[in-house]
């Protein structure tokens, strides 16, 4: 590879260690880097509460401080309206429709690599860099070398066009290496805890967050084997397929086995539960497919692997396009497959495409 051209790069800086090191590496590589922090909440909390959010004043300050240390200009971009509409409202309406959305995936698709990228390109930037743990080489998205921290799944929805303007400088490093590098660079965020939970639900209580917005309404919990009501719940939206805890079943199941959520029916506000075996699916149908890998959209069924949720297991499968939908036949049964999640296809560690799970059986 010859010398890389000097690019104008917009580095999205959350205030965490990953995006700070990512920005520093791009600057070191000789590119013209500008740091931005996305303000995602109209009412940022003034300090950390419980789980770490990505929209606190403290994070904005940490991001600004990291930019100072790196020596790059830094600005705050107000994306609160877009984020609320495309991520938060989408999150709530997806749950209301009985699906289980992944807001991080949605944020990458609609905010970081749509709203931010479009604005960046219009303003004369060439690319957007983030601190995601994934490799991107020649437009091909691959898992991070740190399999425990790999984030290729939440980037799997990006189109080739979006990936063409993305830079992920951290994919070749482990999280431990990134932290050590941050400390070496004098970035004070080096030992800041990882973010885990949904950034806009500061206390981590998703069910309460949804109940606030959708209203609690009592409904039945029905056992699929007997068809009988075995308990009540305060809103079907609070459940996820495959969930075992918090089902509030007031009698033992006929077979004496633990119960899992099999399906959620928002119209009748019914949660159906059953034994683990009933949870197993072998085929998955995905909508809104994206083919972003090295090969074009396949005309024939292809053998590959699929990941059906963040940090989830990977299954061997055969995938095929049919009528605009992606049909996936799993090599071994999967459990806890929820509509609304992403199905990301891999060839080894290379992302080849994705779709949003519409149904599974």
């Amino acid at each position, binding site marked *: 590879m010859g010398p890389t051209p000097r690019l104008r790069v917009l580095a999205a800086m959350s205030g965490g260690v990953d995006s700070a090191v990512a920005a520093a590496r791009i600057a070191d590589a000789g590119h013209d880097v*500008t740091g931005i*922090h996305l*303000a995602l909440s109209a009412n*940022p909390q003034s300090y950390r509460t419980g789980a770490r959010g990505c929209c606190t004043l403290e994070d*904005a300050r940490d991001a600004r401080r990291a930019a100072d240390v790196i020596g790059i*200009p830094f*600005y705050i971009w107000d994306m*609160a309206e877009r984020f609320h509409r495309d991520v938060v409202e989408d999150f709530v309406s997806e749950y209301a429709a009985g699906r289980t959305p992944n807001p991080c995936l949605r944020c990458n698709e609609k905010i970081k690599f749509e709203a931010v990228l479009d604005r960046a390109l*219009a303003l*004369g930037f060439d690319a957007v860099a983030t601190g995601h743990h994934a490799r991107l080489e020649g437009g091909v998205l691959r898992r991070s070398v740190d399999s425990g921290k790999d984030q290729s799944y939440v980037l799997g929805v990006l189109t080739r066009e979006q990936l063409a303007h993305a830079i992920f400088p951290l994919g070749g490093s482990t999280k431990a290496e990134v932290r050590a590098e941050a400390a070496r660079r004098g970035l004070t965020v080096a030992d800041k805890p990882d973010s885990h939970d949904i950034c806009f639900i500061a206390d981590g209580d998703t069910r309460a967050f949804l109940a606030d917005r959708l209203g609690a309404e009592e409904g039945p919990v029905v056992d699929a084997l007997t068809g009988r009501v075995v308990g009540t719940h305060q809103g079907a939206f609070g459940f996820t397929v495959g969930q075992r805890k918090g089902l509030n079943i007031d009698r033992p199941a006929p077979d004496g086995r633990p119960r899992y959520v099999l399906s959620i029916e928002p119209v009748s506000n019914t949660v159906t539960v059953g034994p683990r075996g009933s949870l197993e699916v072998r085929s998955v149908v995905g909508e809104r497919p994206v083919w972003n890998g090295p090969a074009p959209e396949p005309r024939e069924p292809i053998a590959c692997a699929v990941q059906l949720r963040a940090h989830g297991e990977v299954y061997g499968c055969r995938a095929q396009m049919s009528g605009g939908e992606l049909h996936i036949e799993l090599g071994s049964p999967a459990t806890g497959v929820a509509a609304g999640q992403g199905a990301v296809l891999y060839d080894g560690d290379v992302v080849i495409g994705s779709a949003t799970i519409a149904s599974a059986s």
Partner: protein
Amino acid sequence: MGTAYLDHAATTPMLPEAIEAMTAQLAEVGNPSSLHAAGRRARRVVEESRETVAGALGARPSEVVFTAGGTEADNLAIKGLFWARRRPRVLIGAVEHHAVLDPARWLGDHHGADVELLDVDGQGRVHPETLRAAIARDPENVALVSVMWANNEVGTVQPIAELAEVAHEHGIPFHTDAVQAVGQLPVSFAESGVDAMTVSGHKLGGPIGVGALLLARGVDPVPVLHGGGQERDIRSGTLAAPAIAAFAAAVEAAVRRRAETAERLAALRDDLIHRVRQAVPDVILNGDPVLRLPGNAHFSFPGCEGDALLMLLDAKGVECSTGSACSAGVAQPSHVLLAMGQDVSRARGSLRFSLGHTSTEADVDRVAEVIAVVVERARRAGLG
């Protein structure tokens, strides 16, 4: 690549006189309140500074209360006069700086104040009739009136003497934040008739962290800071002799050179406006075209976001401001422009260029060179 610093209304470089006065004092010991020789020496520096400030601003030395800056002086005036007067009504201009607006709102939220914003016209001016009508609704219950001398965003100059006279018809104390005015406009505390006036060091070539509240005889706000009883018991805290000496030197120099500076800046500013208009024909100049601060040029660029303009200009070495308030750095549309009747998108697409004593034709050239391409690019990015 040099930069064009066009944000003097945010802060302006220290004048050589101020740096000299400050550095001369930094090595000296002495608390101005101490009774021994070292204390007396420091006291003398403070009192001479007080006389200098008073002389330059048309006040008596006893009317000068040193503070740690403009925000503190505004807080002392608004809260202190409200508490001293024990009446609920607080009348302030709708385009005041947050250092006036926010203490007033805080009094409304926590101390039962009845805060009324005085409407401004399309250029940001408070008309004396507006104030007269507001007072007339219940004159007995007005604690104070506060209207700034000149607006920090759009530069519009207020008819301060007339407004003060209206307040005095009912014996109501009148405060003005003259932070942007001193050094740019003729400012005389006595002639203006105001009862309280805020001045800040770093807006006129002095250091950051020092300022003054000028208080006419008999105007006694309740203190905000309690402690050692300095400054007539109105403002406790050890007097910062080096900062005060530098502040006084800056006030003296800025006022002495004011006419010449103002003329030079107004010419540069008019050239800037002319060349920005040439480059961007649909640009809108905000504020009064004539009765404005000589160093102020404030524009709206239709179809642009001020933040995008600022970032692109910064990358090209032009340093200016969107003049908007920040919370976590997120730009809110300017309350000043909204009060002037502008819509949110025009308010969001605005930029302030403010010139000061170090500004040159080269700064204007730099803006003229880059503004067209920057505006075009920001327009492509749209209003987000």
